[in-house]
């Protein structure tokens, strides 16, 4: 049999079971018909991973508003839980032959990957029309651009590794947010001596500790070396002196007993709950904790955030933040490109963005959407951190080729769990990466 036909057939049947589960909601025709059989409305299919309220409710409302303003367009949402969407969901839709017209996506690496696969429409020229591009925070375009062209309309900015702390515990122990790593270690020591778990992680999914460690390593090694190694540039290796030193700082924390026990078996949500219950004083995680706090934190729970403390002799920018923009892409071969773009214009209009900020705590990429009137004080803290940062570091979990970064994430889990030294774990990581190359 012709190899091309064999592979095509193989790929198609490979996705059959997944399609049966994931893609059936997207099927059902791409146009609605009136009584005469003539198409009455265009059906725009939108795939995304917004499944929880209040974000989903706000998205539904925005879609309904858009449909009311455009009676000839109907938007059919295919909402898939985040982990499924990231791993199986979106790929199945494309590979199974039911590509969505609009789909949510994380910035940087995945933008390039989907563009190379032929799934991404170039939105550069559209953004120039009516000054649409001017609405956005100018720093987000690095996440949305691939080979000089823009393929992603960013809707939110994710600071993925902010250090949150319990204000009451800090006050009771006479502590102030640290500005240097030495101060941070002193705080951890005080907390531990007072019988409080200093830092908690829920590292079962690997990315929570990996993101935090990556940020720390970038501060020690410098952003260029960090990016070169994570991008697997030829001649680079994970077990270099700077990476060993950076990860070694986490090894020292693990050896001192500063982390919650069994953190590699704890999920990210369980760790957030431990933090809310006051079972740990500090929890490094993304800005999305603000929303969880509104829903799940006990009455009177007070928390705030500080940036990664400055590493005294670090080679990197000590004001840096770990950040990623996420948003929506348009399928390259969609029949409804103009309608898809029109919808994204509406979704990123200032009024809609303000609603997402005020009701969902979204760190919107639309510049004028975040004000003291619309934003939660904690969100304003994040905005302030973002503005004061001179350098943006890309998170390893979705900012780089995940397949090749997973050995690094494994290495961090081994070190933070006290199983291996930083050197041993990074050397093991290099061996795994070499096998992948």
């Amino acid at each position, binding site marked *: 049999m012709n190899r091309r036909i064999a592979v095509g057939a193989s790929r198609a049947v490979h996705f059959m079971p997944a399609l049966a589960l994931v893609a059936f909601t997207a099927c059902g025709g791409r146009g609605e018909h009136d009584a005469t059989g003539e198409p009455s409305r265009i059906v725009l299919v939108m795939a995304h991973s917004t499944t929880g309220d209040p974000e989903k409710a706000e998205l539904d409302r925005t879609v309904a508003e858009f449909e009311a303003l455009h009676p000839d367009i109907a938007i059919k949402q295919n909402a898939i839980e985040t982990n499924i969407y990231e791993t199986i969901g979106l790929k199945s839709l494309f590979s199974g032959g039911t590509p969505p017209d609009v789909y949510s996506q994380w910035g940087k690496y995945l933008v390039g990957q989907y563009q190379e696969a*032929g*799934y991404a429409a170039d939105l550069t020229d559209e953004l120039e029309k009516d000054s649409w591009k001017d609405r956005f925070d100018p720093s987000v375009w690095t996440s949305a651009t691939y080979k000089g062209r823009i393929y992603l309309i960013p809707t939110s900015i994710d600071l993925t590794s902010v250090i949150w702390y319990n204000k009451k515990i800090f006050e009771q122990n006479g502590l102030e947010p640290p500005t240097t790593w030495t101060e941070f270690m002193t705080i951890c020591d005080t907390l531990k001596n007072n019988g409080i778990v200093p830092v908690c992680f829920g590292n079962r999914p690997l990315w929570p500790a990996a993101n935090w460690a990556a940020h720390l390593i970038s501060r020690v090694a410098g952003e260029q070396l960090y990016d070169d190694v994570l991008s697997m540039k030829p001649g680079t290796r994970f077990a270099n002196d700077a990476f060993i030193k950076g990860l070694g700082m986490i090894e020292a924390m693990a050896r001192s007993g500063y982390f919650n026990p069994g953190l*590699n078996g704890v999920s990210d949500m369980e760790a957030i709950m431990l933090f809310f219950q006051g079972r740990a004083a500090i929890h490094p995680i993304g800005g999305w904790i603000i929303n969880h706090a509104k829903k799940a934190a006990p009455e009177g729970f007070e928390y705030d955030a500080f940036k990664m403390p400055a590493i005294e002799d670090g080679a990197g920018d000590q004001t840096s933040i770990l950040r990623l923009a996420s948003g929506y892409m348009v399928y390259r071969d969609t029949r409804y490109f103009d309608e898809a773009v029109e919808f994204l214009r509406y979704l990123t209009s200032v009024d809609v963005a303000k609603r997402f900020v005020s009701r969902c705590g979204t760190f919107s990429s639309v510049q004028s959407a975040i004000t003291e009137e619309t934003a939660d004080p904690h969100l304003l803290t994040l905005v302030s951190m973002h503005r004061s940062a001179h350098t943006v570091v890309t998170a390893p979990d979705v900012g780089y080729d995940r397949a090749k970064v997973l050995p690094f994430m494994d290495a961090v889990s081994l070190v933070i769990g006290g199983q291996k030294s930083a050197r041993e774990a990074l050397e093991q990581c290099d061996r795994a990466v070499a096998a992948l190359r």
Partner: protein
Amino acid sequence: MVRKPAPYLYILPALALFVGIILLPAAGTFVLSFFNWSGIGRDIEFVGLENYRAAFRDGSYFVLSLRNNIVYLVATFIVEMCFGLAMALVLDFKLRFFGVFRMLFFSPMVLSMMPVGLLWRFVYSPEIGILNGALKAIGLGSLARPWLGDPATALYAVCLTSGWRYAGFYMILFYAGLQRIPKQLYESARIDGASDLGCFRHVSLPLLREVFVICVLLCATGAFQAFDLIYAMTGGKPYHSTEVVATWLVEVAFAHNRFGHGSALAVMMTVIVFVIALTYHFYARRRETIEY
């Protein structure tokens, strides 16, 4: 002789479903195992047996996951079948509240795996779990540990949960087997001076052999198909200590974007399960059947 077409037409719908849902995807997986494909786009490359060799290189957890499958098989075999048999024997005594006991023993079977996994995550939670809480309450606080976060205990903790979930199922099989044994055989044994234990050893156990054959096969194939409970409880973590082949191949295919390698693992897994099932079937058929 002209064969009538009717029987073939009757099985056609089932055959079409079997071919469409099982055979074609299986054949597709086999073909894909000789290619490199990220699951995204049209870039695909023929690599021959490379995906099979990669399973045994650094960075692959195939061998470890296979070993974990075997540990899982042995542990679940002991927990599920021993508890199942013990509960069946308790029921066989026809105690008062027989129906309540039967319902209690069987009730975990009606729960789907994801809720079971989540429920037992709370039981094993290092901070708020009832297991550690109970140990501390009875003065055994030194034994408290992060059961699912410790690589030394995580796999066994999952096995215990599996045992809790499935023991009721094996109980029903053994109980049905016990009901089939004629009472006269027990009476004869008693006349010959057999104790309760003697009756169990010389009457019940030999006559339950057919049930054991089925249970062992179900346990073995079930252990190699294990995925949902492990996915819900640990996701193969920590440090891949609970990784089984099914979780590893899903990780490889969907998180590493290596569909070809994932397909190769699936093919190897299928062959292993097939060989085990055939060997066991061959061995079980050779043993003589006791008629009663």
